[in-house]
C-alpha cells in the first residue's frame, strides 16, 4: 500500500476523495423514520465505513487500535456488503416487494468469508485461503448487484424526471463497473493460486480506477436527486424573497421565525423554510385585504393584456400590482372605499401555489420603484 509521503496528489485524490464525499453525505443527511430512508442511510453508512477503512490512513488507524494487519479489509468488505444489501433492499421496498433472499445470502456468505479470514495467515494474494475469501466476497455481491442493475434499469425507464433517470443510470453504471471489478479481482486471485498470467487484473485501470469510478458513480447517483431538488427549492425560496420581505415589513406578525441572515446564506431545512415562506406570504396577503383596490386590479389586468400576458402570468402581474398598491395604501393609512372581492388566484396544491407565488414575486420585483421597498430584513 502506498504510504502517505510517497503518494502523488492524483493518488491522494483517488484514495481520499470518495471517503470524504461519503462522510459529507452521511453526516449531512437527516435521519429518516421510514424504512426506505433507513435503507438509504445504510447504503451511505456501508460506503463510508468501507471507503474509510480501506484508505492507507484507515488501515493505519484500525490496525493501530486492533493490533492486526488485515482487519481493515474485512471491515471494509463488510461495509460494502451492507451497502449492497441496503441498495437492493431499497429498490425492492419502493416497489412493494417483500423478498428477503438477499439478506440470508449476504449474511451466509459473509460468515463463510469470516471463516476464510480466520484460516488465512494474511491477505497477501498468494497466501492460502485468500482465493476462497476473494471468491466468496464476489459471490456474495454479484447476485445482489445483478438485482440492483435489473431493477435500476427498470425504474429508470419509469422515472418521471430526468434527474431521477440520470441518477438511477449512474447507480446502474457504477454497479456494473463494481461487478466487473469483483470478477477481475477473483480472476487475479485465481492467477496466483493456479499460476497463470493476468495482466488486466494487475493494471491500474482494473485495480484502482475501476473501483474508484464505481464508488463515485453510485455515491453521486444516490445524492443527485436530493441535491438537484434542494437547489431548486433554494432558488424558489430566494425568488419569493422580495414579496415576503415587503409583506413582512408591513406586518411583522406574519413571520414565525424571521430569518437572521440573507437568503443566499440560508442553508438547511430549505423545504420547511420554503413552505413557511408560502404560508406567511398568504397570511400577509390576507392581512392586506382591506387595502386591495378593485380599480387597481382592473387597470393592471388591462395593462398585462396589452403586454401580451395571459394565464397564470397575467394573474401574477395583476396580483403583484394590487399588492404593491395595497402596501402603499396601508403605509399611508388610506384604505379604498370599495375593496376588491375578486376570486383568489393561486394554486390548488402546494407545488402550484409555490409556483404561482414565485411568478407574483418576480412580477412584484419587476415593478421596481412602483413597489414599496423590500429591503433585506
Amino acid at each position: 500500500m502506498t504510504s502517505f509521503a510517497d503518494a502523488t496528489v492524483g493518488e491522494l485524490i483517488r484514495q481520499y476523495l470518495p471517503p470524504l464525499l461519503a462522510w459529507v453525505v452521511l453526516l449531512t443527511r437527516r435521519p429518516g423514520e421510514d424504512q426506505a430512508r433507513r435503507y438509504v442511510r445504510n447504503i451511505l453508512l456501508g460506503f463510508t465505513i468501507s471507503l474509510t477503512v480501506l484508505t492507507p490512513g484507515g488501515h493505519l488507524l484500525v490496525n493501530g487500535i486492533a493490533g492486526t494487519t488485515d482487519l481493515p479489509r474485512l471491515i471494509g468488505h463488510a461495509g460494502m456488503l451492507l451497502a449492497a444489501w441496503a441498495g437492493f433492499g431499497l429498490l425492492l421496498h419502493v416497489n412493494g416487494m417483500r423478498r428477503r433472499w438477499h439478506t440470508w445470502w449476504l449474511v451466509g456468505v459473509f460468515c463463510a468469508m469470516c471463516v476464510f479470514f480466520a484460516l488465512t495467515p494474511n491477505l497477501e494474494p498468494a497466501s492460502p485461503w485468500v482465493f476462497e475469501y476473494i471468491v466468496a466476497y464476489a459471490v456474495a455481491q454479484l447476485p445482489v448487484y445483478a438485482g440492483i442493475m435489473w431493477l435500476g434499469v427498470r425504474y429508470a425507464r419509469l422515472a418521471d424526471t430526468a434527474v431521477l433517470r440520470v441518477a438511477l443510470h449512474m447507480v446502474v453504471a457504477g454497479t456494473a463497473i463494481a461487478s466487473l471489478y469483483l470478477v477481475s479481482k477473483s480472476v487475479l486471485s485465481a492467477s496466483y493460486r493456479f499460476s497463470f498470467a493476468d495482466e488486466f487484473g494487475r493494471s491500474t485501470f482494473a485495480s484502482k480506477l475501476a473501483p474508484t469510478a464505481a464508488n463515485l458513480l453510485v455515491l453521486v447517483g444516490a445524492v443527485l436527486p436530493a441535491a438537484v431538488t434542494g437547489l431548486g427549492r433554494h432558488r424558489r425560496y430566494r425568488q419569493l424573497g422580495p414579496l415576503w420581505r415587503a409583506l413582512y415589513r408591513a406586518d411583522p406578525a406574519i413571520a414565525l421565525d424571521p430569518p437572521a441572515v440573507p437568503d443566499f446564506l440560508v442553508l438547511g431545512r430549505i423545504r420547511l423554510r420554503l413552505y413557511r415562506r408560502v404560508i406567511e406570504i398568504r397570511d400577509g396577503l390576507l392581512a392586506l385585504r382591506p387595502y386591495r383596490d378593485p380599480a387597481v386590479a382592473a387597470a393592471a389586468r388591462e395593462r398585462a393584456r396589452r403586454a401580451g400576458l395571459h394565464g397564470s402570468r397575467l394573474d401574477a402581474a395583476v396580483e403583484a400590482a394590487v399588492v404593491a398598491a395595497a402596501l402603499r395604501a396601508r403605509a399611508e393609512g388610506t384604505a379604498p372605499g370599495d375593496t376588491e372581492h375578486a376570486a383568489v388566484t393561486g394554486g390548488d396544491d402546494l407545488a402550484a401555489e409555490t409556483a404561482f407565488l414565485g411568478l407574483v414575486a418576480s412580477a412584484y420585483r419587476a415593478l421596481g420603484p412602483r413597489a414599496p421597498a423590500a429591503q433585506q430584513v
Partner: protein
Amino acid sequence: MNVFRRLALRRRCRARLRDLPLPVPFDVHELCDRVATRRGRPIRLLPVAGLTGVCGLWIATGTTDLICYERDTTRPHQDHIVLHELAHVLCDHYPVSLPGKYDTTALFPDLDPAMVRAVLGRAGYSSAEEREAETLASLIRQRATTRADGTLHARLHDALDDDRE
C-alpha cells in the same frame, strides 16, 4: 425565541407527529376525522368568509370542536389554517386558553356562548401556544407531502430526498 427553545419546541412537535395517524395520500379533512375518532369528539370544519382579525378559529364546545377557516384564500393556505387549529386540539391547548377572547356570537348567532369552553384564533405567534400550534402544523404538512402516494417514483423521490423533518 432562542435557538435552544426553538429546538426543544421542534423536538416536542416531532414527538407528537410520530403518533399522528396521517392519511396517505394526505387529506386534511380525513386527518381531522381520524383525530376526532381517536378523541371521541367530533370535529367540524367550517369555511367562513372574512374572519375578522384571525384567519382560523378553534371553538371548543361541550361536545364538539369547531374549526373555522378563511374561505377566501387558496386551498393550501386553508389546509394550513385547519392544521394550525387541529394542532391546538392535539396539543391540548384549550385548558390554559381564555374563553371569551373572541366573540363567537357574531359568527354563530345560534351558538349559546355558555356552551363555549375555549376559543383560540390564528393571528400571529406572540404566545407559546400559537408558536407550538404553528410549528406542529408546518411539520405535519412537511411530513404529509413527503409520504409516498403509491407510485414507484414518488416513493423513490421520497427515499432519496434529504430535506424533510
